[in-house]
């Protein structure tokens, strides 16, 4: 093993980003991402077949750019890691096919890993020359993207990750996309709703906060639901049009965003209180949302919870976090997955590594 920790290449292809990252221990040497977001834009959401086709085209060039950026040779790698799930099956298979060929032809150990645990690992990575980030465990982690909305309790990255709750319908990012479409705003919905909400009044319309009523909290205390919110926005838009009024897009966008952010932060901090863990980690592409970061920062401070938000390029789906998780597994002496594992689009978060 090389000095500074294992040299690991990670491949990520669970949704619409083709990511290849290379880490040495916790140091990120390369984090190259090719996205099909522009091709998805005209459809207003991620079309699995478009994502899978884009992965195939991007995979080899992305691998080459990552190796070039890191300045390492394939022969020098200690291991290869790849996202095996959860995610879009056809998209995952492109990454797994590439990773297996890489591992078998270069004769490297291969780790098929859990995408969500990769998001948590992102917090432990640092850029070359930057101060190493101290690892703080246990932590509650809130992972929010177009593909997932999950609350986790992480006691140990490799051995003990527990799912506290997740969305029962749409992912938060998906709710942003669908609401943007309702309001005639472009895809992806996160940034366009953020822009539209800038001059809006977040208290103008009281949209519902899913699964926060006392009876829901009994069974779904840490679960999320955004379909009711989306319907409420649709109803509001339709009523306004039926009444012949002008739609106050800024107010609707701001009120919608406030409802999403409120539920996310409230449930995450409730999880910290319930588990007695005063640490909260944010991850996933929705972390780009300024309002989410601001509200989380203010309320976490008030609750005495230490908040961690990795740099944005490690929050979105990326290969470095997968490489980082691979490096942790190598350090922990985990048995590699071998060459025969398959993808699992609903891989449970408790399963960090495929065998």
């Amino acid at each position, binding site marked *: 093993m090389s000095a500074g920790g294992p040299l690991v290449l990670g491949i990520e292809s669970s949704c619409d980003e083709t990511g290849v990252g290379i880490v040495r221990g916790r140091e990120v040497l390369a984090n190259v991402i090719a996205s099909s977001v522009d091709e998805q834009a005209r*459809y207003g959401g991620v079309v699995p077949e478009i994502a899978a086709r884009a992965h195939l085209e991007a995979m080899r060039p992305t691998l080459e750019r990552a190796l070039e950026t890191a300045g390492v040779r394939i022969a020098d790698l200690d291991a290869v890691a790849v996202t095996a799930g959860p995610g879009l099956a056809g998209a995952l298979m492109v990454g797994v096919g*590439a990773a297996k060929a890489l591992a078998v032809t270069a004769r490297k150990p291969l780790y098929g890993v859990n995408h969500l645990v990769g998001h948590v690992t992102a917090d432990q990575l640092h850029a070359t020359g930057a101060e190493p980030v101290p690892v703080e465990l246990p932590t509650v982690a809130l992972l929010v993207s177009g593909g997932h909305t999950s609350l986790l309790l992480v006691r140990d990255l490799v051995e003990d990750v527990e799912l506290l709750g997740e969305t029962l319908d749409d992912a938060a990012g998906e709710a942003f996309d669908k609401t943007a479409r309702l309001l005639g705003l472009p895809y992806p919905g996160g940034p366009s709703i953020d822009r539209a909400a800038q001059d809006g009044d977040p208290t103008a319309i009281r949209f519902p906060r899913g699964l926060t009523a006392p009876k829901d909290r009994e069974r779904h205390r840490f679960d999320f639901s955004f379909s009711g919110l989306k319907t409420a926005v649709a109803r509001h838009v339709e009523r306004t049009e039926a009444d012949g009024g002008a739609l106050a897009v800024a107010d609707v966008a701001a009120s919608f965003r406030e409802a999403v952010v409120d539920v996310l932060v409230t449930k995450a901090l409730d999880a910290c209180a319930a588990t007695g863990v005063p640490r909260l980690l944010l991850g996933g592409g929705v972390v780009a949302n300024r309002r989410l970061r601001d509200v989380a920062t203010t309320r976490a401070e008030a609750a005495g919870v230490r908040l961690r938000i990795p740099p944005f390029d490690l929050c979105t789906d990326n290969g470095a976090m997968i490489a980082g998780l691979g490096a942790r597994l190598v350090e922990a002496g985990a048995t590699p997955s071998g060459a025969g594992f398959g993808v699992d689009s609903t891989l449970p978060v408790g399963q960090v590594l495929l065998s």
Partner: protein
Amino acid sequence: MLLAIDTSGATSVAVVDDDGALVASLLDEDVRAHAEHIGPLLETVLERAGRPHVDAVAYGVGPGPFTGLRVGMAAARTAALVLGAIELPVLSHDAVALEALRRGMRPAFAVVADAKRRERFATVYRGLDAAGMPARDGEPAVGPETDLPRVPHVIGAVDAGLLGVVAALRRAHGVPPEAPDARYLRSPDVTIATVRKSVLG
């Protein structure tokens, strides 16, 4: 040596020498587990061939069901990168056509394969090219069974060994390789919601 991979139907991996002689090959007929099988097959075939020096990687570009097809293409392109080998894309049906020719089938005939959704992929072959390999009459097409070309049909699994032979002999005769793009023959299936459904009931 040439490494050949095809996942347009089954999962198949082979090593072929520069003269087109088969060194090692494996085929798994399971059409639902390409991502699982590609690793062990690749490993076993390379071991059986004695971990040879590979300077070209041939791969099937379809047509075939997309999800599986991409697994082999991604694997082959990555293997070429690792091994410092050139990529030799091959139309997957060419391998089936070669087998038919070797069995004595006379052109014209069509290689026909399941395209799901009650449709078929079909490629018509009319003779031999400069390398003595199957020569196509036009491009592969997808359509309902009733539209299939009125020539004898050939159906069979794509064997990477034969695909490798096609690639090796074409390369030896200076026949340019196929375009590297997957032969999807269908645009990505999308339904775009243009009309908003009422939620007021």
